[in-house]
Each structure stands twice: as structure tokens, then as C-alpha cells.
């Protein structure tokens, strides 16, 4: 009990301190500096309408590369830790009829929706990560509905690696063409879709990278689900 009381007091003091700090950053005020530059130039410089995705993929490409890597690490790490000589799914109860039927019907559409999200990343809210996650939910549904279902994880792993490489390669092509890593050669050099701003075929390499990310996130999250749901079985 004492411990809880102490914890609460400690936390309240810390909270007060944080709040005091935040008081210097008043809520809802315009303090944009670099962000204003983004908003002013996003259309002409990247061809994207969604400033957030332009920032994520283009201006702050390194972050996103890292972000992809983090997820990749998670999937690899989970795979490494839960690796066993032989593992199988051990779920006993099949999903209810509602679930199985619903899954059968919905899974392809969910995947399609995921693909839609990441392809339109430069135009609408969303992008590669939400898209990938949506795709992964489809697989999660499949796992929940069917006790024997397994993703083809060897293939998934290969896809995971390959699209990851593709992302870096896109960056390296930029280095080769424009002299800068992660250089948006599609938009800046080729000028692809200059007239199309605000439509699908624009945004430079944002859709390309988001497709890559979408695939990657989808496969990785599915892989994590797969790893966590399986258990070791003795041979």
C-alpha cells in the first residue's frame, strides 16, 4: 500500500513538472517553422497533396527507412526468439460459423482495401503503414478462423527481404542518378505526373515506396502473428 502511495506521489510530482514544461508550449498556437516551409512547398517539390506522407517519405525519408527497419527488426527478433526446431499451430477450437464465413468473404476485400490505402498514401490519410497493417488484419482473421491455416512464411520472409532491398535500392538509384541518397528521381528528374498533382499518378516515388512499405509491413506483421501463435512440438 505504501508503495502505491509513494508511486502516486512520485508520479504526481513528475506530472506536475511535465505540465509545467508544457505550459511553455501553449496548446493550439502556431509555432511552425520548418513545417510552414513544408506546407508552402509540398506540392511543387514532391507532387503530393498529403503533406504528412510527403514529410514521412520524402523530406524525412531517413526516418521512414529507420521505421521500416525497426519493424523488420521486430519481425526478425520475434522470429529469432520464438524459433524452434519444429513448431505447429496448436489451436483446438475452430472459429464459429459467423467468423469463418465472414472471414472467407471479407479477407480478399480487406487486402484490397489495404492496398488502396497504401497506393493512395500521397493523396489521402494513410499510407504504407496503415495499409500494411490492414493487410495483416486479414491474415489475423484467417488465423483466428481456421485452426490449420498457416501463411507461407518462407515466401513471406523472402518477400520481406526483397521489398526491403527494393526500398534501399530506390534510395541508391537516387544516389546514382541525383547524387543524393533517397533522392526523388521520379519526381524531380523525370517529372513524372507533374500535371497530375492531386491524382493517383503523381507524388514522385511516394506511391512506389508506400507500395514497398505496405507489402513489407503486411508480411512482417503477419509473420509476427504467425510466430506468436505457433508452439513448439516435440518430434
Amino acid at each position: 500500500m505504501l508503495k502505491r502511495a509513494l508511486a502516486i506521489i512520485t508520479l504526481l510530482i513528475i506530472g506536475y513538472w511535465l505540465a509545467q514544461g508544457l505550459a511553455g508550449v501553449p496548446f493550439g498556437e502556431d509555432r511552425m517553422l520548418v513545417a510552414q516551409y513544408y506546407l508552402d512547398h509540398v506540392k511543387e517539390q514532391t507532387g503530393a497533396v498529403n503533406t504528412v506522407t510527403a514529410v514521412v517519405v520524402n523530406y524525412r525519408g531517413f526516418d521512414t527507412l529507420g521505421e521500416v527497419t525497426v519493424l523488420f527488426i521486430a519481425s526478425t527478433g520475434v522470429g529469432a526468439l520464438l524459433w524452434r526446431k519444429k513448431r505447429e499451430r496448436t489451436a483446438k477450437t475452430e472459429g464459429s460459423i459467423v467468423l469463418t464465413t465472414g472471414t472467407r468473404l471479407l479477407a480478399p476485400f480487406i487486402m484490397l482495401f489495404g492496398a488502396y490505402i497504401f497506393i493512395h498514401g500521397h493523396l489521402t490519410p494513410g499510407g504504407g503503414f496503415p495499409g500494411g497493417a490492414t493487410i495483416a488484419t486479414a491474415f489475423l482473421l484467417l488465423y483466428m478462423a481456421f485452426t490449420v491455416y498457416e501463411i507461407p512464411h518462407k515466401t513471406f520472409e523472402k518477400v520481406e527481404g526483397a521489398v526491403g532491398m527494393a526500398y534501399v535500392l530506390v534510395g541508391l538509384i537516387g544516389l546514382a542518378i541525383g547524387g543524393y541518397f533517397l533522392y526523388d528521381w521520379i519526381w524531380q528528374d523525370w517529372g513524372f505526373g507533374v500535371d497530375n498533382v492531386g491524382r493517383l499518378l503523381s507524388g514522385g516515388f511516394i506511391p512506389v515506396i508506400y507500395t514497398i512499405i505496405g507489402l513489407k509491413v503486411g508480411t512482417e506483421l503477419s509473420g509476427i502473428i504467425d510466430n506468436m501463435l505457433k508452439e513448439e512440438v516435440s518430434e
Partner: protein
Amino acid sequence: MNGQYASLLIALPLISAFFVPLIKGLGKKAVKYYLVLITALQTGIAAWVFQEVYTTGKPIIVMAGAWRPPVGINLYIGHFAALFVLIVAVVSFLMAVFSIRAISVDPIDKYAMLFLLVMLGATGMIATGDIFNLFVFMEITAISAYALTAYNKTGEAAEASIKYIILGGIGSSFFLIGIALIYGSLGTLNMAQIAQLAGGMDATVAQVGLALIVFGLAVEAELFPLNAWAPDAYQAAPHPITAMFSAFVVKAGLYALARILYLMQAVSSWHSVLKLLIIMATLTVFVAEFAALRQKNVKRMIAYSSIAQIGLIGLAFALGTQSGVDAGVFHMVNHAIVKALLFLAVGHVAVSLGGAEMEKFEGLGKRMPLTAFAITVGAIAAVGIPLFNVFWSKLRILLATLGAGYSWAAAVVLIASVVEAVYYFRLIHTMWFAGEGERISEGLAVSLMLLFLAALVIVIGVYPDYAWSIAQKAGNDIFNVADYIKNVPLMGVGA
């Protein structure tokens, strides 16, 4: 060659890591040798960058996507980063070679990927010029470190990992709050610009933000009392990984701490933060040395010793003087070499004899003379005996500490050093003058590496001038913020 090619430092490990799943069918051996190959390539690139930076004397600014900072994220490979990227690469290479022998737990392909990503993360942390990007790279390092800590899949490994995750998680969360505060106040994330604008920041925000960032990084940098995860992680992690933790993962955190600290010099509460850090660093040294005193497990003992040395570096950085930073950088280099040597040797013993307990080291001088010799060199160096490299940096740090007027800190550090001397002394005595044993084959590759590192220890010890001049340049890179701001080609956004 175009400086932008330095971005290969990031690109190469990444693309190679992604490539691993495609070649894992070729078998375990192939993956291990692939790992060696990639780290060798990385060493090559790092060596090129190093040579480039040190001959031109100008930092390489890598601008991703051709965006000039602060609009885009830039890598700043100055004297310090060039030096440390090289060290990261070299240590990784050595540990990749050691992994061939030391790692037998499956799945090797995952190990190789995580290995490369730890290296990538540390490289990125050291090179980046953007504070949020720093966070991302820190997380890359940390999460792959979590995974690698637990890689052996024993109970202890998992235990160590969960401790690391919980503490690291808290640390990174608060670090992020700090970033949020600074961003909210300044509207930029670029480190050079932050440095430029720091003086005009709201005092409270600056104080809270700086404190939180320091707190978050101190967890990674193993400052007392935030270092409780470290000994466990060091002990439980696979041997090559432990060496990497000690040689550069921690140092990356420490570097980040120092870098941000000096960037925010203009902040009004800067000096109190320094004082706090000095207290923490001094306590780190003290507690860690005492904790190592009666350690039965040699790997854990050296882990504590490593923590203590990190504390010493932290102390040097927290002094806030040019000489302190120079000395700290010098100590970083020396410590990386010595601890790589020690963990390599101890890991080697543990692999060969099946454990790193003190009893296993009895008669090591007769069983594995070369390894025992290497450990001896490392231990003597770590204690700070003249003509070994650590002596020079320790001396510099002490002079700097006293020069800054912190005599008590120097005294505490030295009292702790006495303790350090005692336990290393016990180790040396155990190895050479206790127990008997048959000679065991030591393996050519590991022997060569041990000899290489031991030679490096002695060469720097006998002829420290070159290393010291490099360390001075690197230290200047951290300390001299005005140059840092000048070197980053900021476009006039909002200025």
C-alpha cells in the same frame, strides 16, 4: 568521390540485412561468412570516410533526398563520427569473425540480420544530424539489442532482455517527450538549428526538455542509477554481442548525450544539468567498481568494469570543458579497444571451456596462454598502468576533472579505481599462478584478433601522439558547437 556516397554507411548494412532471408537457404556457414564479408565492406567504406574527413579536415554532410537541412534530414560525419563509424565497423568485423566460432544457436540468419542492424543503428546514431532521426536510430539499436540479448533463448537471456526492454522503453518514452517539448518550442528538429535557436528558448521548456532528453539517453548510456539493466544484458548476451555493446552501442548513447548536451549550451539551466551528470557519472564509476569487486562471473565482472569506464567517459563529457571532451573521446577510443579485447578473450574462454566463471580461469595461463596474455594486457590496460593506452586517457580525464575544479570527483573515481585494480589483479593472479591444465588449441582467427587488439593497446600506449591528435580533433568536433552550426548548410528557413 562524392561525399554523398558516405550514405552507403547506412545503405549497405540495411540492404545486406534485407538480403539475408534470400540466402539463408545456403546454410549456416554461408550466412556467417556473408556476415564477415559485409562487415569487411563496411569497414572499407568507413575507412574511406575516415580518410576523407581527416585529410580534408571538413565534415561530410550527407543530405538525404537532396533536401538541405533543416528541411531534410542530414548526416553529419565530422571528425568524431568518422572516427567512431570506423571503430564500429572494425569492432563489428572482428566480432563477425568471432561469431563464426562463438555462435551455434539457431537461427543464424536472424542473428546475422540483427547483428548488421545493431551496427547500422550505432552508425546512424553517431552520424545523424537530426534529433528525431537520432531517436529512430536509437530505437533500431535498442530493439535489435533487446532481441540479441535474448538470442540464446535461455531463461537468463530472456530475463535480461525484459529488464532491458522495460527500462529502455521508459527511457525512450521520456526522450520522446523531451523531443516533443523542444520541437514544440522551436519548430525544428535539426540539431544545428536547435543549437542556433537554443538561446532564445523558453527557460522552463528548455530545462524540462533537456532534462528529459538527458534522462532518456542516460538509460542507454548506462549512467547510475539507470544502468541496472546493463550487467544482466552484458552477461546474458552472446559473447560477440557483449563486446559490441561495450565497444560501441553504449558509446553511441553516450555520444548522443554529449552531442545534445553541448548543442544546448546556450540553455540557462545547462550548468546544473552538467553538475547532475557529474554526480551521476561519478556514482556510476563508484558503484560499478564496487559491484565488480567480488564478482564470480568474469564476464559480469568485466561488464561492471565497462560500466565504470563509461561512467568515467560520462564524467569527462560532463565537465563542460574542451580538455574534458577531448579526454573523454580519447578514453572512448581506448575503452572500445580494451573492452573489445577483454570481451573477445573472455568470450573465447567461455566458448572453449563452457562458461565464464572464475574457476574456469584457473590455470588459463597454461591452458590458453595467448588468450590469458590478451586478458592480462587488457586488464592491465584497464587498470591504467603506464605504457598501456588507457593510462593516457585516464590521466587526461583526471587532469581535466581537476582542472575544472572537481577534485572530489577525481578522488572518488580514483578510490573506485583502486577497487578496479584489485579485482583485475585477482583475475590475473588466478589465470597465471593458480591451477594447472593441459594446453588447448586456441584457434587461429581469434588468436590473430587478440594479438591485433593487444598490439593496438600497446602501440597506443607507447606512442599515443597520433591517437591523441585524432581524439583532439574529434573532441573539438563535439565541443565546438559554433563550427558545427557553421558546417551544416542550413537554408534560411524561419531564420
